[in-house]
């Protein structure tokens, strides 16, 4: 749910260049300057990871790099914070998948 409205308090932005990232093997449009978490949320992906202890889903919570709930695999490197990582063209992002194991 990207915001497209413009208000005095929240003037509209022109996002960066349109790029393409690969989320769980699927091509997804993104914009330069967006965070990995933003692109996933805009795609309607809510489950970023699953807790290895219990299988419970986890997702963005604090949005500022404190809680480590939004961990995903980026370009093959595991356990990176989606809310602290900006997207780049052809970046691969792997979530835990949307179906319970």
């Amino acid at each position: 749910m990207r915001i497209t409205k413009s208000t005095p308090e929240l003037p509209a932005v022109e996002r960066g260049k349109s790029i393409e990232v690969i989320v769980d093997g699927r091509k997804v449009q993104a914009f330069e300057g967006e965070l990995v978490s933003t692109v996933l949320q805009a795609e309607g992906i809510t489950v970023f990871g699953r807790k290895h202890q219990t299988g419970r889903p986890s997702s963005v919570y604090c949005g500022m790099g404190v809680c480590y709930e939004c961990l995903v695999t980026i370009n093959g490197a595991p356990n990176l914070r989606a809310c602290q990582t900006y997207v780049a063209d052809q970046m691969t992002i792997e979530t835990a998948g949307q179906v319970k194991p």
Partner: protein
Amino acid sequence: MNDIVELAVIGAGPAGIEAAVTAAQAGVEVILIDSSARPGGQYFKQLPEAFQCEDRTEHHLKAQKLFQKLASSGVKVWPNTLVWGIFEGAQPGVWCLTLHGKDAPARLNARMVILATGAYDRSIPFPGWDLPGVVTAGAALTMVKHQRLLPGRRVLLSGSGPLQLAAAAQLAQAGAEVVGVLESSANLLWRGIPYLPALWGQWSRMREGLGYIKTLVSAGIPYRTGWAVTAAHGEERVREAVMARLGRDGKPISDSEKTVAVDAIVVGYGLTPSSELIRLLECEMEFSAGRGGFIPRRNENLETSRPGIFAVGDGAGIGGAEMAMIEGRIAGYAAALKLGHGAEIQTRRAIIQERAALRREGRFADLLGDLFSPPAGLYTLAKDDTILCRCEQVTLGQIREAISYGTQTVTDLKNLTRSGMGNCQGRTCGSIIAQIMAAETGRTVQEVRYYNIRPPVHPIPLWAIEEHEPEQ
């Protein structure tokens, strides 16, 4: 790297920028370190560089002025750099910072350090609080302001304090359907009367607050005081929120419960100081509920019990951006004097002036801290199967069992249950488990204390240490 910089400032938010600039203007060599790509912290968070925006808001212009001051100050800024530890250096009077970042050295030696590490949202657990779609007020504001993203289409806010009013107003303006704003404190107007003198002179803040309320009223958004979210339902994401009116003790009144369909819940029960590095240094701490919990004891120059280590801004006690900037300037002046820079008399005079401003801001911070302290009864919302430590998936039931073994402090609970040992290093659950342990054992939070902390204070890849620390 054997060079020793005079002053390292950690955190480039309002407090850190003012501290760094003030010291640099007095002639100090300063390195300002921040984990983000661009300075500003959470309060003055900048848009990503790739985004274009014509922003003429007062807030943006204020931020720009601060950034310009920083750019012309001679302060060296090290962005994208995480400080994962501070240790006594090889020589006396030198502190060694251990760093992780693409362009950062592994270590930085500094004669003095100003910690301006900021704060993050305080959480209060309830059944379902760990479902995707439940986010903090800070997260919601970051999504909206920094990314132009809505956390959901139908949003309920629950928490305490002005931050959630700001979040609600922004969400509503940006096009979200805000189904309500729940404020856990009751009788705000009546309880606010003793604080009226502290409001004198705070006109721009009151205008800001009234602006938020106007936005909510004109959008027909209900604002309920003495209410809170008590549970979230859903499978893979939140679908429903349960809310209830709170009794005098802060416990929900069960026959007042209502259920609403939502796809996001924004929770914000005030802020917690980010005190990990302060605790790692074993600075003397004191407890202040109104300032967000355990905070470092500081002298009037804002120096901690460790000589040469200063702590300023929300990371040293919640007080807001204005107070943080004043504190930053005081510590910047004081560090410059200690390092032998600056004209002594003028600098001391400047410190005295800043202290008067600090007292004024302190009264306002006390007002917010007292009016918007979440009631203790809210900590009874969690059930035995509710997760308290999200990283290690430790439930309230497990914590209760560990308490029954005769544990004395939250660090005992950590050792028994692994709570606080995960990726976030106890940032999210630390204050929650302290509150619950205190309540269950009839003791105070001062007695059950805070988690011990160990380096690294943020997870870093093993290779990051290995590479720079070859076997001797």
